[in-house]
């Protein structure tokens, strides 16, 4: 910075601390609430210091859930969310890598047409075509299944674009050298292109895992069987019940558990996360 006056630095730190506090506040409240006993919520306001029921609450939610609200154990829902997120992430990466490879490294009839076909998916988020997509999945018998939870969300123009962009920056000579060295298309893909793309793949993995984990509307639509509930949508079922009964300590325990995996992913892979985020949106 051009100048560094002590008082302006102090002021800057105050702004940032206030900002961080604002960002942290709701989660802090949730964590505090998740440590309280059931009686706390009958008495009016929530205390701002942790109570002593953390282990009870978390164990109860992990193992049994809120049967009154029709919600299965959080442990099961976490597992379902994990499967769905992983399936979406791996599926997206796989099909995007392959199609970007085809579009960049081959010339064939209708190449541009296919590119635009994929491009269109950018403009059609699930939220705007809810009913017909639901009908298609229902007709295919994919309701209440992991296939139904993940496959319709796998097509991704964003990842295809990113990989196309990246492939275009791979030096031409690498392909030529590989061909002189006797590598065919699939060998080139496996031996050269994939290893070179590894940072991009990892960065996208972070973004897509969070995207997959946080799906809400889609699981809400296609799962009626609690065995397939994912944790983010399952919480909504609990709040509906919690609003009547004072079950907030349990709901907040579930909220904390639902938010934890993606938050951990970001905290531990911040560099990849930032790269993934800024590059997918370019």
């Amino acid at each position, binding site marked *: 910075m051009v100048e560094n006056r002590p008082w302006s630095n102090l002021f800057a730190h105050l702004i940032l601390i206030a900002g961080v506090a604002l960002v942290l506040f709701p989660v802090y409240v949730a964590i505090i609430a998740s440590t309280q006993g059931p009686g706390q*919520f009958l008495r009016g306001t929530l205390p701002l210091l942790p109570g002593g029921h953390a282990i009870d609450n978390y164990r109860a939610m992990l193992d049994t859930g809120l049967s009154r609200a029709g919600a299965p154990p959080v442990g099961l829902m976490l597992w379902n969310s994990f499967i769905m997120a992983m399936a979406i992430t791996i599926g997206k990466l796989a099909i995007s890598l392959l199609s970007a490879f085809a579009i960049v490294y081959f010339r064939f009839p209708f190449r541009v047409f*296919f590119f635009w*076909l994929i491009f269109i998916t950018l403009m059609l988020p699930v*939220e705007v075509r809810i009913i017909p997509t639901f009908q*298609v999945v229902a007709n295919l018998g994919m309701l209440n299944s992991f296939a139904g939870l993940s496959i319709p969300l796998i097509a991704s123009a964003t990842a295809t674009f990113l990989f196309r962009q990246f492939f275009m920056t791979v030096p031409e000579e690498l392909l030529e050298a590989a061909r002189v060295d006797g590598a065919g298309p699939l060998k080139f893909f496996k031996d050269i292109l994939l290893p070179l793309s590894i940072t991009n793949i990892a960065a996208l993995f972070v973004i897509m895992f969070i995207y997959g984990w946080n799906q809400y509307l889609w699981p809400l639509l296609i799962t009626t069987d609690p065995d397939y509930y994912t944790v983010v949508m399952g919480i*909504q079922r609990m709040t509906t019940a919690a609003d009547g009964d004072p079950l907030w300590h349990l709901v907040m325990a579930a909220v904390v558990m639902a938010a934890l995996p*993606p938050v951990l992913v970001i905290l531990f892979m911040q560099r990849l996360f930032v790269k993934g985020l800024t590059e997918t949106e370019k």
Partner: protein
Amino acid sequence: MQTKRMTFPGRWLPYALLAPQVVITLIFFIWPASQALYQSLLREDAFGLRTTFVGLENFVRLFGDPLYLNSMKVTLIFSLGTTLLSMSLALLLAVTVNRMIRSRSSYTTLLVWPYAIAPAIAGVLWWFIFNPSIGIVPYLLDMLGYRWNHRTSGGDAMLLVIIAAAWKQISYNVLFFLAGLQSIPQSLIEAAAIDGASPLKRFWTIVFPLLSPTTFFLLVVNVVYAMFDTFGVIHATTSGGPSQATNILVYKVYADGFVGLNLGSSAAQSVILMAIVIALTVVQFRFIERRVNY
């Protein structure tokens, strides 16, 4: 559109490589979207027994329907409110973080993680904080003499969902503003300082104009986010209420189609939403093209 200078020969291989993505796109994107287009021209009778072709009548009805027009107004207020609140807080935080040297990365870490939180969960968190009977904020507001109740007051409910949606988006905006700030050459700011501009003046005359590509980009992204990705915020908290006060377009498509089972109208609403997404995407791409040409 470009390929590599040299490409692989192959008659069927490129099609095989494209097949998975193309098949999924056709089945789960193109087909449902065309179904939505088709259904938007039909009407089902009350028992779902007969469908008749009604042309554009579903659209005509929508634009004459006070509930739909209300939903448009609500969406507008919600999107603008969320975008402005989130972007202005994020800009303030990003500019402040950017002047830190040693603590920059710690503050960034502390600010970026809410990106990981699902909109629905963000909604539940704030719903809880603002809970009229046990929430902390209503308790404090009560001491100031304001009785907060988002179950009965449409304004309170709108404010609640705006806060929840904006809170979740701050981290995203901070990251992009930071990237934008870091691409402004330090020498420009130093030149302005030598020219005698005060810090505040430097911000408004140098930094803010140079940041405008980022700002515009975020504006579009935030509006898209507020319009389409916030279904969870609404559904997990107000469910569009009280009395339609937070019934944004995306939520209404769902409510009319899934709960109200009015397929024709829901499909017509889908078509309108698609038109909006396409328009926003075009705006965004036009803008990106221009940025590339700089």
